[in-house]
C-alpha cells in the first residue's frame, strides 16, 4: 500500500478541483436551496460527470466503467466535498454501484451498472429505519415470498440519500420466513413505492421511502448482510473523503479570515490564542488525510478481508466525522459575528458536518466497532 498519488491520480484530482471551482462552489448549493430546486442538484453537471467517466470510475470496463478504484473516486469526492456539491455520486456509484458490482445477480449487474455509469440513472441504497446513533443499520422491512423467487417488499426507510430522485433504489429487507437480511434492486417508479422528500439541514437531497407490496423478481436479490456491510464500508470511505475535502475548505476559509480580519489594529490571525487553535486543526486534518488514503487503498486491495476494510473504514469515519465537527465549530467561532449569519458560507459546512456524522454511525460507534473487530 503506497500512500502517495501517482501522476494519473494527480490529474484526476486536479481536473475535479477545477470543475467544481468553476461551477460556483458553495454558491451553487445556496441557490439550489433558495430556489427549492426539485432535483436538489444540477442535471447538467451530472451529465458532465458521466461524460468524464467519473460516475463509473470504480466499475470495470465491461459495464461501462473506467476500470479504476475507490482510491480514484475518493479524489473526485474530496474535491466535490470542498464545494459541498450535492450531486448524488456517493449514492449512485458507491452505494447502489457497489451493491450491484459485488452482488450475486449478474442480470441486475449488467442491466443497471452501464446506465449508472452513463449518468442515465440516479441510484441509491435504503438501509436506515430508526434514528439511533448506535445502530446505523436497522431493518424491520420484510420481503414476502410469492414463490419462484419473486417477493413483495413492505416497510419504510428514512434518510435515503437522493431517495426522491432515485431511478434505482437498493432496499434492505428481511426475508419474512427466514429472517435473513437481503438487498433488493427496486426501480424508482415501481408500483407501491412512495417517495417523500425530506428537507434536511444540509440542503442535500434526501427522502423517506414507503414500500407497500413492491414486487420484484428473483434476479433483483443482490445479496445478504455481508454484502450490505461491505457496501456501507465502501461508501463510508467515500463519505470520509468528501468530509476531508469539506473540512479542508472550511479550514482554508477560516485561515483567509484570520489573515484579513483586523481588530485592535492588527490581523486577528496574529493572536497566539487563535494561531495555536488553527495549528491543532491543521494537525488533525493531516491525520484525516492519511486514514482516508489508507482506507481507500484497503477498499481496492483485491485480497483484503472484509474485516480489514471494516477496520479501515471505521478508522476513517471515526476520525473524519470527529474532526469535521471540530473544524466547523472552530471555524464558526473564529469567524465571529459573520459566522452566525446565513449569508456567509461557513454555516453550510457546519450543517453538512452534522449530517455526515450521523450517516454511517458516529465516531463512538465506529470506535466500538473497531474494538469488537480487534476482539475486545
Amino acid at each position, binding site marked *: 500500500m503506497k500512500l502517495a498519488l501517482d501522476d494519473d491520480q494527480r490529474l484526476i484530482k486536479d481536473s475535479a478541483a477545477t470543475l467544481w471551482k468553476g461551477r460556483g462552489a458553495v454558491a451553487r448549493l445556496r441557490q439550489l436551496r433558495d430556489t427549492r430546486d426539485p432535483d436538489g442538484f444540477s442535471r447538467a453537471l451530472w451529465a458532465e460527470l458521466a461524460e468524464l467517466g467519473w460516475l463509473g470510475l470504480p466499475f470495470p470496463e465491461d459495464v461501462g466503467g473506467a476500470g479504476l478504484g475507490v482510491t480514484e473516486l475518493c479524489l473526485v469526492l474530496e474535491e466535490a466535498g470542498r464545494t459541498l456539491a450535492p450531486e448524488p455520486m456517493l449514492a449512485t456509484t458507491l452505494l447502489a454501484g457497489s451493491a450491484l458490482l459485488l452482488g450475486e445477480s449478474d442480470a441486475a449487474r449488467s442491466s443497471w451498472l452501464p446506465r449508472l455509469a452513463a449518468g442515465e440513472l440516479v441510484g441509491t441504497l435504503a438501509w436506515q429505519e430508526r434514528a439511533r446513533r448506535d445502530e446505523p443499520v436497522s431493518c424491520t422491512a420484510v420481503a414476502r415470498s410469492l414463490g419462484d423467487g419473486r417477493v413483495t417488499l413492505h416497510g419504510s426507510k428514512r434518510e435515503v440519500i437522493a431517495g426522491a430522485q432515485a431511478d434505482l433504489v437498493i432496499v434492505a429487507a428481511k426475508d419474512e420466513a427466514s429472517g435473513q437480511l437481503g438487498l433488493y434492486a427496486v426501480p424508482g417508479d415501481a408500483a407501491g413505492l412512495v417517495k417523500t422528500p425530506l428537507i434536511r439541514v444540509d440542503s442535500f437531497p434526501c427522502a423517506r421511502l414507503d414500500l407497500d407490496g413492491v414486487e420484484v423478481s428473483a434476479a433483483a436479490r443482490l445479496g445478504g448482510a455481508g454484502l450490505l456491510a461491505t457496501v456501507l464500508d465502501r461508501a463510508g470511505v467515500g463519505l470520509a473523503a468528501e468530509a476531508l475535502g469539506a473540512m479542508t475548505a472550511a479550514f482554508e476559509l477560516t485561515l483567509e479570515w484570520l489573515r484579513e480580519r483586523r481588530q485592535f489594529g492588527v*490581523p486577528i490571525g496574529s493572536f497566539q490564542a487563535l494561531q495555536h487553535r488553527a495549528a491543532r486543526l*491543521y494537525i488533525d486534518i*493531516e491525520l484525516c488525510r492519511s486514514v482516508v488514503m489508507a482506507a481507500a487503498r484497503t477498499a481496492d486491495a483485491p485480497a483484503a478481508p472484509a474485516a480489514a476494510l471494516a477496520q479501515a473504514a471505521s478508522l476513517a469515519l471515526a476520525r473524519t466525522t470527529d474532526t469535521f465537527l471540530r473544524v466547523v465549530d472552530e471555524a464558526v467561532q473564529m469567524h465571529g459575528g459573520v459566522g452566525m449569519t446565513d449569508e456567509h458560507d461557513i454555516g453550510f459546512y457546519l450543517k453538512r458536518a452534522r449530517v455526515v456524522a450521523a450517516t454511517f454511525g458516529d465516531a463512538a460507534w465506529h470506535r466500538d466497532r473497531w474494538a469488537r473487530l480487534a476482539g475486545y
Partner: protein
Amino acid sequence: MADLESFRGEVRTWLEAHAPASLRGRPGDLFHGTWGGRRARFESDDHRRWLELMVERGWTAPTWPTEYGGGGLSRQENAILQKELRRLRLPPPLIGFGLVMIGPTLLEYGTEEQKREHLPPITRGEIRWCQGYSEPGSGSDLASLQMSATRNGDGFVLNGQKIWTSYADESDWIFCLVRTDPSAKKQAGISFVLVDMADPGVTTRPIKLISGASPFCEVFFDDVHAHARNVVGGENNGWTVAKALLRHERTMVGEVFARSVVGGEQELLQLARTAIGPSEGRLDDALLRDRIAQSAMDERAFMLTVQRIQDAAKAGQPPGTESSILKVYGTEHNQRRRELAVAIAGADALGWEGAGYAPEHLALTRDWLRSRGNTIEGGTSEIQLNIIAKHVLGLPDGGAR
C-alpha cells in the same frame, strides 16, 4: 534495477554469513543500542563484534561518502540495506547524535578539514557527541542564549552554561551555540562551535528528573579554549546551522516516537484484561474499551501519517509541510497512552520502587513520568505550534512568541 537486485543479493549473503546469531530478532531503535565513544559500553561481545564488522563496510553511516568512513550508498541502496537488517530484525550497529545530528550537519556545512577530522571517528563509534543548545535563561527563546565566546589568539575563550544536554556525562565532544558578537541582533551574533569535553574547564552534572532517571545534564564552561577551526558554518552564522540541525532533530524525534508507539493497543489490552476481565467475550468496561480503541486508532493514524510522508519522499515529491506535525502529535499521543496505562493499572501503578510492586508496574509508572517531558524537550509543543501557524499556515507574525 538489475544493479539494485544484485546489491540486495550481496547484502543478504553478507548479513547471513556475518551478523551474529545472538543479535537476530533483537531490533533496537535510535535510542536503544550501542552508543560508542571513548568510554563505550557493549551489551555483549557480539554487540562489539557487530559494530566492528559494520564499521569495516562503512555501514554504520551507509549514505556518507567512503572517504569519511561511510558506505557511499545511494538512497535506494541504503533502503535495501535497512530492509535486509529489518528482515533479520537486527539492531543498528551504532546509534547516537554523531550519526543523526552533527554528522549530517557537518556534511552540509562543514569544511573539508572538519569533515576529515570528525566524521570518521563518528562512523567508527570512537567519539560520542552531545548537543549544547539550551541555557538556564534560554529555553524556548533559544536565540537569547548568553554563553560567551571571546576572541583570543587562534580561537575563542568560552564561558557559560548549557542545560538539558542529553547524555553529556557520557559524551566526548559537544556541539554548542555560543555568542561571538554580543552587540549584534540576537540571531546574528551566534556561532556554532565544536568542543572536546576532555579539555580543561568543562564539567558536567546530571539532572535528576521526576521519573528518577537522569538522561539530561548541565554542562559548565570555565575559560575553555576553542580553536577557530572548530567553528562550523562561519563566525556569527551559527543560527543558520542550528536551525538546519533542529529541523533534522524534530523529524527524527517524530520517527522515534512512531516506532516506540507501535504495539500500544496490545500493551493496554493486556493490562486491561488483567485488571478487569471479560464479559460475554468483551472487555467488561465500555468506557475503557472506548479509551483503548481511541488510543489504538490515534496510533494507527499517526503511523499512517509517518508512512505517507515517507512514501511522498520516495515518490520524489517535494517534502511537504506534514512533517512539522510529527513532534507535536507523536509526543502527545505517547503521553495519553502512558496516562491510560497507569489509569488502567490503578493502585498497582502507584509504586516507586521496592518489592511491594511488580517490576512491570514500576516501569509503567516511570514511563508515565518520563513521558511528561516529551512535549517539552526538543522544542515545546507551543513552539511547534508557533512554527506551524507561521511557516505552514502563513498566519501573520504578531510578535507573540
